Each structure stands twice: as structure tokens, then as C-alpha cells.
């Protein structure tokens, strides 16, 4: 069994708390991504799982055994580093087999494992080359190969794609996912890129300031964020936030965005927000794809209004539009032939079925 459990894990450096009490259960075979901005504690957490950092307080268990004091080599884990950390004086094959050679595995078995891993990662022709003869993507594959041949309980990835260019990153993401499908080892993956998190993870753990903001599947996090941080972090371009108030108009619940704009809430939303204070300071969160061009036949819950665009970004399959409302810059996604022009007017529609209401003070999603 290769499940990983963190119980109230704390990491303190002198008086600074980098990780402030984390509880996490990772099931066997699961691919979990720790994501968050720089300094949120995700790398520190990963390194504590690896054994490269001491745990100030709390417990970490791998496969049901507490590993707090167990040295890294006995935890049966493998790690892929951001700058690959390949041994420069060894060939690819020697790099990959180093750990096995230290444990004195029989030569035949080492060869078999290297061949399998090399085939899986498509680096068979490279096994006799030295790292300096390889490109960045190839080096990263070798680093992964080194982890695979060990056949460990857990794979740990520390921002492995950060040093690659954008195109290569997309390719390697797919490689990593394919490897996980084949090998099915429990994986803990750290990144600051939420796209990687969303595309690779079975579950995503969003961290901020040493704490976990939310744990959930990518879809859950995208469609049902629990806090403002998660709502704003996940999704690109980011969610739009606008101050608003609830008000009752003619017996129906409305949401007021500005002096001129007030929309009636669709029934399900109205029911949910029925008990929210009408004087409370609230934020409405709308993803850009829910601000689109107004269609001729409006559907229930979709309300239209007029806006003057600041800037447009034609992306080919869609056009991103930026406009200002009540001093806030908002972003929307419209059809490329919707007639969006820099500085021009456009009639937009918001899809209130997919809105989020947040308490401005606590940042919690209601």
C-alpha cells in the first residue's frame, strides 16, 4: 500500500512558519498536485515527505508507517527535481541505475528496468550519452527515468517543467500523464502553474501562506471554489471580481453591480442566497467565459448590458475583451466575429447561473 498521509504537519524556520498545520490524505495510485504561489509552502511540504527537511511538528506516514525520522533512502520514494540534478559525469544509463547499483541489484535486473523505462520515455538512443549532450526535455525524461526504475512507493515531482519552454512544457505534461497511466505509482507533484495542476491531477491541493485553501478534483475547484483565493487562482484568464449588493426588488432577489446595472437572480441562485444580509459587503465572481456577447435569444439567467471595450485580444478561436465597470477591469470571452473592437461598444451578457457570491471580508464563497 502506498498511500501518503500528512497529519497536522508544521515546518518552522527560526520564527517563521513555512507550513502551518497541514492535513492531507493521498490514496494509493493517486496523482495529487500541490499548487500555489511562491512561498506558499508547497515545496517545503514535498521536501518533508521526501525527508530532505525535518518535520517540526506533526506526522507523515507512507504506506501506513510513520516516516518522520526515516532517512530518505529508506522511505522508498523517488524525486524529480526542477533542474533535473543529473550526475554530469555519468551516462544516462548510469544516472538511471545509480540508486539500484547502490542497493546492489543484480546486473540483469538493472538492465531490464533501464530498458523498460527508456522505452516508456522514448530515450532508448540516449542511454550512452552524458547529460551535457542532451536537451532540456531529454534531461527531464532521464530524470523521470531515474525515478521510474526505482519502482518506489511514491513519486515526488518538484516543479519539473518550470525550466522548459512553453511548447516543451505541453509535451512533457502529456508524457507525465501517460507514464502515470502506465505505472500508476502514487504521485505528489508540486507546481505554481495552475494549468499543470488542472491537467495532471486526480486531486488538486491549493495552498497559500503555509495552509491548505481547498482540496478537490480539478472540476470541483474550477466550478465550486471555496475561497476567493482559490476562485482567483484557478482558471486562466482569472475570475472577475466585482463588488455588489443583494437587494429585493418586487419580491425577487436582485444583485446590484452598479447604479445602472441590477440583475434578477435566477431561481436556484436566489434560493441559495436568500439568507444573505442585504447590507453585507459582497463580491460577485464571474469567469470570463460567463461574460460573452449578448445573443439574440436570451436564455434564463443570462442578463445583458452595454459596455465600452478598452482592449481586445484576438486569440483566434475566441477574442478576449477587457472593459471597465465601476472602476474594476473585467475580462470576457466573445466569439471572434462578435464585432469586438478596441474602444468600441459591445452588448455583453453575463451568465448568472454560473456566478459565485463571496463575502468580501472573509473571502469565503457562499
Amino acid at each position, binding site marked *: 500500500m502506498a498511500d501518503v498521509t500528512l497529519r497536522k504537519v508544521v515546518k518552522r524556520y527560526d520564527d517563521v512558519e513555512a507550513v502551518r498545520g497541514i492535513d492531507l490524505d493521498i490514496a494509493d495510485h493517486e496523482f495529487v498536485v500541490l499548487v500555489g504561489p511562491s512561498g506558499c509552502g508547497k515545496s517545503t511540504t514535498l521536501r518533508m515527505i521526501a525527508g530532505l527537511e*525535518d518535520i517540526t511538528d506533526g506526522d507523515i506516514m507512507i*504506506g501506513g*508507517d*510513520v*516516516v*518522520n*525520522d*526515516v*532517512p530518505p533512502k*529508506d522511505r522508498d520514494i523517488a524525486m524529480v527535481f526542477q533542474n533535473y540534478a543529473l550526475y554530469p559525469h555519468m551516462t544516462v544509463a548510469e544516472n538511471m541505475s545509480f540508486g539500484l547499483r547502490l542497493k546492489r541489484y543484480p546486473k540483469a*535486473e538493472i538492465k*531490464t*528496468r533501464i530498458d*523498460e523505462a527508456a522505452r516508456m520515455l522514448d530515450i532508448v538512443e540516449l542511454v550512452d550519452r552524458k547529460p551535457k549532450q542532451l536537451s532540456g526535455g531529454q534531461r527531464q525524461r532521464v530524470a523521470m527515468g531515474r525515478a521510474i526504475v526505482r*519502482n518506489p512507493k511514491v513519486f515526488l515531482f518538484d516543479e519539473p517543467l518550470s525550466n522548459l519552454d512553453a511548447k516543451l512544457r505541453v509535451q512533457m505534461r502529456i508524457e507525465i500523464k501517460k507514464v502515470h497511466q*502506465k*505505472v500508476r505509482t502514487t504521485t505528489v507533484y508540486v507546481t505554481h502553474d495552475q494549468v499543470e495542476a488542472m491537467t495532471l491531477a486526480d486531486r488538486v491541493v491549493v495552498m497559500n501562506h503555509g495552509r491548505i485553501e481547498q482540496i478537490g478534483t480539478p472540476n470541483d475547484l474550477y466550478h465550486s471554489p471555496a475561497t476567493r483565493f482559490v476562485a482567483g487562482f484557478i482558471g486562466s484568464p482569472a475570475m472577475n471580481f466585482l463588488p455588489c449588493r443583494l437587494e429585493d426588488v418586487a419580491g425577487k432577489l436582485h444583485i446590484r453591480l452598479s447604479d445602472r446595472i441590477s440583475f434578477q437572480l435566477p431561481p436556484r441562485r436566489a434560493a441559495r442566497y436568500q439568507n444573505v444580509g442585504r447590507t453585507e459587503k459582497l463580491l460577485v465572481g464571474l469567469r470570463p467565459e460567463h461574460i460573452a456577447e449578448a445573443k439574440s435569444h436570451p436564455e434564463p439567467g443570462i442578463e445583458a448590458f452595454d459596455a465600452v471595450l478598452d482592449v481586445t485580444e484576438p486569440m483566434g478561436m475566441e477574442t478576449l475583451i477587457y472593459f471597465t465597470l465601476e472602476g474594476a477591469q473585467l475580462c470576457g470571452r466573445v466569439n471572434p466575429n462578435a464585432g469586438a473592437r478596441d474602444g468600441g461598444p459591445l452588448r455583453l451578457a453575463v451568465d448568472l447561473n454560473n456566478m459565485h457570491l463571496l463575502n468580501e471580508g472573509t473571502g469565503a464563497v457562499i
Partner: protein
Amino acid sequence: MVDVVFQPSTVARAGSVRKRASLRTAMKRKSTAAFLMTLPLILLIAILVIYPAFYSLHLATLNKSMQRFVGFGNFEFLFRRETFWLVVKQSCIFAITAVVFKALIGFIVAHFVHNIPVKGQRKWRGMLLVPWVIPPAMSTLAWLWLFDPSYSAFNYTLSFFGVGPISWTGDPDWARFSVILVNIWYGAPFFMIMYLASLKSVPDQLYEAAAIDGANWWQRIWYVTLPMMRNIIAITTLFSLIVTFANFDIVRILTSGGPLDHTHIFATWAFRVGIEGSDIPLGASVSLFMFPILAVAAIFILRDITKRGNEA
């Protein structure tokens, strides 16, 4: 995928007491290993450098046969000897003159080497470093032969210009010149190599900016090169001062301190007095005089380096 025979881990669920105890042993293992690895180094320095240094302090307070304690007796004896003050003066002149010229020549030659195209630099650099590679005892023999009273090759060449034979090692002033010359010949390449490495690390763009600003070659050196090389200049100067001040081989072989003790420096005189004269305490007293002077120089220069380091 290859299956591994999986051995269930024997690590039981740990209570917090065991956690703390094994954490301590883990820490200890790393520190003890590290300590053991540095132990030979520490022992070597403690027993063969630090202890003898203090021991020499003790020795300097004994009488010649090392039976009696005479306190500052040896030092008083030295202060009254004219030779001693001669040695002090000569050591200082020798060290300072030699180091100044070595640094200067090293700096100038480094510039010339830096100016020529990179491809050719290697062989010029190779030839210029030869004096430093040859064991000083061996090369000093060559100089001794070149300075020989009867057969000096230099005198032979000079005679063609009408310059009379020079008594390179016989005349006190020429002897001092010769000793300093040999030391410069031997030590300048070291400065050259260090300065060359440092010159290469000065970014070209600084020179380009200075050239555009209208600086001529002298100004470029003064305002760009020298400030960038301050640290290296300080370190090499300190290192060389110490080594030159404590020099033994050259003077010993070339003049044995003569003529009439006019080229004796601390090391050679300590050897004469301590080993040849079998008066170890007195010899130790002589050697010890080097130390305060070295320490003062070291403090000045090191303080300068750390101050500059904090500014940078």
C-alpha cells in the same frame, strides 16, 4: 512493469519519545561523520603548527642549553646586537621592495598578455610562468652561477659595453640588489597569473563605456581596472608579503647572509644562530620577531578586504 518483491517495512508506528530519541541519533551521525572527516586536518594543524608556534614562545625564554629560564634575556641580548637591527632593517627592505616590484611587474605583464589575441596567450603565459615552476633552490643555483665572481656570464656580456665587472655577491649593496632581483624573478609570475585571471573577469562593457566617455588608457586603468581588482591585489600582496618576508632559500643559497651579514633576513639568521650556532632559544627569539610584523600586515589588509567586501 517489473514487479519488485515487496518487503513489509519493519518500522513500527512510533510514539513521540522514540521520535525524539532517534532524531538525536540522526543528528549525531551527521555531525560525528563530519567531525571525523575534519579530525586529521585539525590534528595536523594543532600539533604541527599551533603547538610549535607557542612552543617557540616558550623556547625563546630559555638559555642556550635550555636548562634555565631567562625570561626576556634572549630578547635583551638581541636588542643590543647591531646585527639584529641590521637583520630587521634588511628583512623589511627586502620584503617591501621585492613585493612592490613583483606586483608592479606582474600587473604590467598581465596587461600585455591580456592585450594580445586569446589564441596566442596560452604559450606566452606558459613561458612566463616558468620561473615559478622551477624549484627556487634549483633556480637560485643558476643565478649563483650567473653571478659567479670569476665566471659571471653577466659580467662577460657587460664587458662588451665597457662596464666593469660587478661583484654581484661580494659587494654589500650589489648583494642586496641581487637577492631582491632573484626574488622578483621568481615571484613576479605568480602575480602575473593572478592578475591575468582577475583582468579577464572585468567585463568588457566597462571598458567600452569608459572609452566612449573619453578615457585614455591610463584613466581606464585607474578608474576601471584597479577598482575591480582591489580584492585580488590585496590578497596577493598579503600572501606575497608573508612568503617573501619569511623567505629562506634564495638568500641562503646566493649569499648565505653575507657579505658580512649584509643580506641576512630573519629566516637565514635564525638558521645561522639556531642550527649552526646550536642556540635554539636564541634562534627562536629571532624567528618570533617575524610574527608581530606579519600579524600587523595581515590585520591591515584583511580588514581592508572585509570592509570592501561589505561595501560591494
